[in-house]
């Protein structure tokens, strides 16, 4: 090697080298990309909501997302945190989830209240992302349901259910003129429908196992109605009706490993077994398991709400216990409780138990053996 070439060789200058502890490489995945993948998984259900409930549903989604983002920025300003926190996408996810939990026709101010409950009370008072013990969207839904029961149970029929589907969006667009919410309320009142769960709730229970008992829920629990429930052609919150769309989203979530599979599996499994047993013993008390699986907010909760990373147990065993607890509570509220639906309550109650569950379900390290006392490290 000649002298000239040797001189041309460039070597690293020590001063510019970064010193840090290993590992020196990282995944490219970050919180924002995780949140955007969750949004992607929500798209089928959101699309189904717009398909079945039209422009009003789109407006609710718009208001919820807008308010959640704005409130997040305002909080960050007040709390002296950088407003760029909003870029992590978690407020977007909360906004979308909140919308999915509201009736398809909801006034803008209800959305605003919901966003306040979700972002401020549900998340930021605890210190923001990752610190909240309760699912923000569930906090908002339950808060609104208790504060504004009338507004939160304005169930409108889906486009497939109305006689003149052609008029559908026109009628509801008019109804969704929220500057005149009183009139709108009247318009809606004229055409509200009951959700399958509220029909089940209001059906008198028959406590024997005769023929009448077996037929007690035939009107709402038959193969034809199951199909309608599956595709989402029924009354309900805007994002919860289409089991099909939610399942597609669920597959996306599972394939990106954004949720712990134990939660939907054990949640849905417990509901199926629990309602199956009750239906078997007293067929006049509750409809068959398939009815329970396909109606209400169960699917949405099992894949999108209960699975929230922050508020569910982190270990697989913990997630399974969490799912079973959710299932039992949901069934108890649905069958014997005062509300037709119980998923939001179940989620909040089980969220509160997460630290306890995690203590019970700690992982055992590889090669675990019971520690021998007083062993010097």
């Amino acid at each position, binding site marked *: 090697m000649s002298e000239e070439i040797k001189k041309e060789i460039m070597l690293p200058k020590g001063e510019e*080298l970064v010193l840090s502890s290993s*590992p*020196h490489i990282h995944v490219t995945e970050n919180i924002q990309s995780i949140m955007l993948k969750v949004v992607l998984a929500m798209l089928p259900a959101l699309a189904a909501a717009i398909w079945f409930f039209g422009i009003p549903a789109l407006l609710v989604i718009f208001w919820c997302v807008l308010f959640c983002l704005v409130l997040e920025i305002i909080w960050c300003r007040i709390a002296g945190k950088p407003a760029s926190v909003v870029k992590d996408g978690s407020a977007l996810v909360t906004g979308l989830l909140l919308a999915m939990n509201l009736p398809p026709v909801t006034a803008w101010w209800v959305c605003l209240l919901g966003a306040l409950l979700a972002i401020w009370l549900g998340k930021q008072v605890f210190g923001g992302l990752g610190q909240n013990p309760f699912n923000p969207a569930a906090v908002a839904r339950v808060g609104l349901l208790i504060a504004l029961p009338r507004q939160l149970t304005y169930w409108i029929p889906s486009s497939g259910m109305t006689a003149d589907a052609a008029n559908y969006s026109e009628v509801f667009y008019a109804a969704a003129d929220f500057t005149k919410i009183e009139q709108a309320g009247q318009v809606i009142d004229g055409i509200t429908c009951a959700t399958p769960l509220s029909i089940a709730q209001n059906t008198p229970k028959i406590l024997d196992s005769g023929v009448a008992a077996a037929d007690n829920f035939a009107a709402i629990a038959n193969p034809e109605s199951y199909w309608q429930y599956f595709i989402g052609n029924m009354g309900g919150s805007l994002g919860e009706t289409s089991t099909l769309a939610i399942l597609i989203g669920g597959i996306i979530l599972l394939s990106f490993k954004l949720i712990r599979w134990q939660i939907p599996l054990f949640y849905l499994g417990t509901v199926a077994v629990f309602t199956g047993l009750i239906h078997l013993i007293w067929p006049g008390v509750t409809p068959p398991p398939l009815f329970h699986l396909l109606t209400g907010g169960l699917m949405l909760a099992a894949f999108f709400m209960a699975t929230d990373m922050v508020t569910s147990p*982190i270990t697989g065993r913990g997630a399974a216990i969490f799912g079973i607890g959710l299932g039992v509570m949901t069934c108890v509220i649905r069958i014997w409780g005062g509300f037709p639906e119980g998923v939001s309550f179940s989620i909040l109650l089980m969220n509160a138990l997460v630290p306890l569950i995690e203590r019970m379900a*700690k992982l055992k390290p590889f090669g675990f053996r019971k520690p021998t006392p007083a062993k010097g490290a």
Partner: protein
Amino acid sequence: MNEQAINKDLKIVSFKGGVHPQKDGKILSKKASIQTAPLLERYQVIVSQNIGAPPKVVVSAGDEVKKGQLLAEAAGFVSVPLHSPTSGKVEGLVDIPGPMGVMTQAISILADGKDEWTELSVSIDWRNSDADTLKKRIMECGIVGMGGAAFPSHVKLSPPPDKKVDYMIINGAECEPYLTADHRVMLEEPEKVLEGAAILGRAAGVKNVVVAVEINKVDAINAMMEKAAQFNVGIVGMKVQYPQGAEKQLIYAVTRRKVPTGALPADVGCIVQNAGTAAAVAEAVNAGIPLIERVTTITGEPVVNPGNWRLRLGTPISEALKLCGGVKCEPGKLILGGPMMGFAQRSTGVSVMKNTSGILLLDKSDVTQYESSPCIRCGRCLEACPMNLQPSALSQLAEAGQYENALKYNVMDCIECGACAFACPAHRPLVQHIRRLKAEIRNRTKKEIKK
């Protein structure tokens, strides 16, 4: 893609958990044959190169030494001697930048250019010799684990008599991204690795000897499979997953045995030795050659010609980089070892040691200096942890200073592989927090013992 197909008879095993970096960087150097570095003017041999007691220096300034001559003798059982990389004159003891960021003592040798060997020990007919003779030779030749830990090999070969060892596993996983030194050694010198494996098996009195290799080194696997039978050594393939080569994970993958918490591989009847170490053992036993050089991968995107080089101990990193044509651009990091567990360096004055498996330069764009965000409890770290720990919980305990609670989460079981911190989407310094917890707990235990 690999040109060679995987042999159908190859058993492919793995551990549970771990991560697989998508960009593993091996492509840069895996095709580059091992080259021998030309003789340098000066070598600065770091004295403390092995885990355990540093050897005691037996030469002084002005001494003439031959290549392979003893520079420092073992100071105790967990210690190995150190030998001269070439012939020349001892300039004396100097302080040079050490691999851990502090100055360290080195023996500076001015080469005389003759590169004359000292009188080497005679060859041992290992097939007919007893275990103690082999262990003694391995110790005398200064052989340590060359994968990274630099633990004296003869110590591993001497488990307490009450532990029955029946498995010798040669670690050819090389699961660290970017590194290809063991890959090239296994591919180019399969017989040396296999013979070394057989010798190590004999020295430990073990019949089951296997070389375990990740299946991204198909050519090396095939090269060894051809010759494995003549040394009575088995070859096992392993899934490409980090940290496949971590001792406990490797043992589990190959034997399905779990090394219990706080126990040693010998407790489940296993001894693990690195593939490069096996090659060095073969040379030591067959030719009496002490460990004075090793194959090191010099790589990274900023390196002009990444490659695998046979470098003598005491070669300054700057000289090693010159062999590769230097750098194209100013790198962001200089690392000794691989990107997952290697040590970042500030100076190119550090010299090659027995455990320098790689000299890695990372591009500025690859140097990740993130602000970490709060844990969103996604569970990526739990999935990644090969020890089935809960890094997210441990990290929060570290932030809260709750060292006692960390013990309930089995913090001392952490092998510090860094898979958790690699996988964390919030870029939390998980393994760094855990290291801190471990250090604090060790400190407290020491203080309690003193009381």
